[in-house]
């Protein structure tokens, strides 16, 4: 006798077999694909027997499966094969459990922890320096430095910019310009001619630059900073001057 039951397994049809259950997950999901196309009773018992191989304690279902195993050659052979596999896996596992981790691992972890620790340093937390603050800092610095940089590019010194910004003592050194070679078009005088920008103000009565439009009167610029002026083309809407150019 090779198996119990006489009906072929059909997907989606519940069989009353084995333990008398209408629904058995082993049969539905473990199905013929994995159970070699055997009979439904064998499939049910093989699922149980696999769990026995994996250490399932004896209960009524196990007893029934073992009883089936005693009279089904196919299941005996199937279980013998799987028992070989399980024994082989146990040997492999036992060998793997004799392995130790190589030394030096903690050193690497500690080093990487050390690299990341400053982000949680107490002084940082105490100072409440947020990430947003750290991002904003370079922006603020750039805003403060930009006039000085522009001044250097246009032949003035940082001190001139300092004087413009009202830094005490800066006016004395402002008398010694250190011009940098810059294209003529970017020179302060050229810019003044082009945009009528003079000491931070835009004149009302300056003639339009050649080929361009009129300069829109904007009045004095705040704090002496060279802020962008708006140039109105001869026949078009106002276009903003790039801030870098305006600053220069």
């Amino acid at each position: 006798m090779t198996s119990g039951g006489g009906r072929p397994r059909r997907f989606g049809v519940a069989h009353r077999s084995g333990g008398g259950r209408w629904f058995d997950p082993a049969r539905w999901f473990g199905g013929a694909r994995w159970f070699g196309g055997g009979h439904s009773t064998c499939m049910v018992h093989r699922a149980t027997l696999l769990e026995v191989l994996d250490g399932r304690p004896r209960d009524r279902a196990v007893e029934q499966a073992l009883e089936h195993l005693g009279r089904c050659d196919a299941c005996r052979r199937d279980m013998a094969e799987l028992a070989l596999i399980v024994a082989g896996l146990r040997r492999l596992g036992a060998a793997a459990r004799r392995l130790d981790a190589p030394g030096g691992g903690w050193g690497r972890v500690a080093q990487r922890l050390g690299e990341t620790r400053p982000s949680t340093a107490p002084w940082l937390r105490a100072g409440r320096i947020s990430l947003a603050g750290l991002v904003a800092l370079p922006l603020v610095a750039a805003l403060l430095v930009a006039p000085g940089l522009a001044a250097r590019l246009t032949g003035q010194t940082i001190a001139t910019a300092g004087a413009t910004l009202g830094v005490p003592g800066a006016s004395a050194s402002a008398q010694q310009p250190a011009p940098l070679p810059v294209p003529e078009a970017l020179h302060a005088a050229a810019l003044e001619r082009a945009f009528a920008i003079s000491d931070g103000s835009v004149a009302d009565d300056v003639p339009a630059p050649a080929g361009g439009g009129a300069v829109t009167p904007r009045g004095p610029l705040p704090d002496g900073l060279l802020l962008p002026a708006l140039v109105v083309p001869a026949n078009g809407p106002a276009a903003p001057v790039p801030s870098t150019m305006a600053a220069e």
Partner: protein
Amino acid sequence: MAEPEPDDASLVNSVRDGDLKAFEAFYRRYETAVYRTALALLRDEMAAEEVVADTFLRAHGARQRIDPARSPLPWLQRIAVNLALNRLRRRSLGLEPLPERDRWPDPATGPETTVERREMTVALAQGIARLPAPMRAVVVLRFVQDSSLAEIAETLECPVGTVKSRLHNALRLLRDDLRREFEPAAAPAGLGQPLPGELEGPAA
């Protein structure tokens, strides 16, 4: 005289408080178990070491989430398994190189070891490497870590039934693999022979 080692709960509490010494003790306590899992999954010593380091760095970053009332090992294994499976995925996509040397401990070193058993063990180790990643994780946790089905379910965050079906399917796939390997003449006892049920088909 050496200080007695703290139990899991007090060690975890110290780790949660940010004590780096305690974290070192925590690392040393669980390093080997995590390494074995990573190595069994990846079969590559260097990659396994990297996974161990990444696992503990992540554990340190998330130390507040360690539950002092439970063993942290399943949690650590979960991190390690996920990292290792990610690497396997990258390998399968060709984004990460395959290991230069397949590394698996050789259990067949005793004098009593037969050639057949040795061949079968080698074939079995290769078969594990060919298993789909989720099945491989279950097999490794079951047989290398000797975890129970419930522990595996906790580690992999899936139902016990899923673990069972993955394990059974993995065993059947490994059996099929060995059949192909040894078929037909050189099969070890019981392998390579078709099952009567498979040839006969169901009775009418």
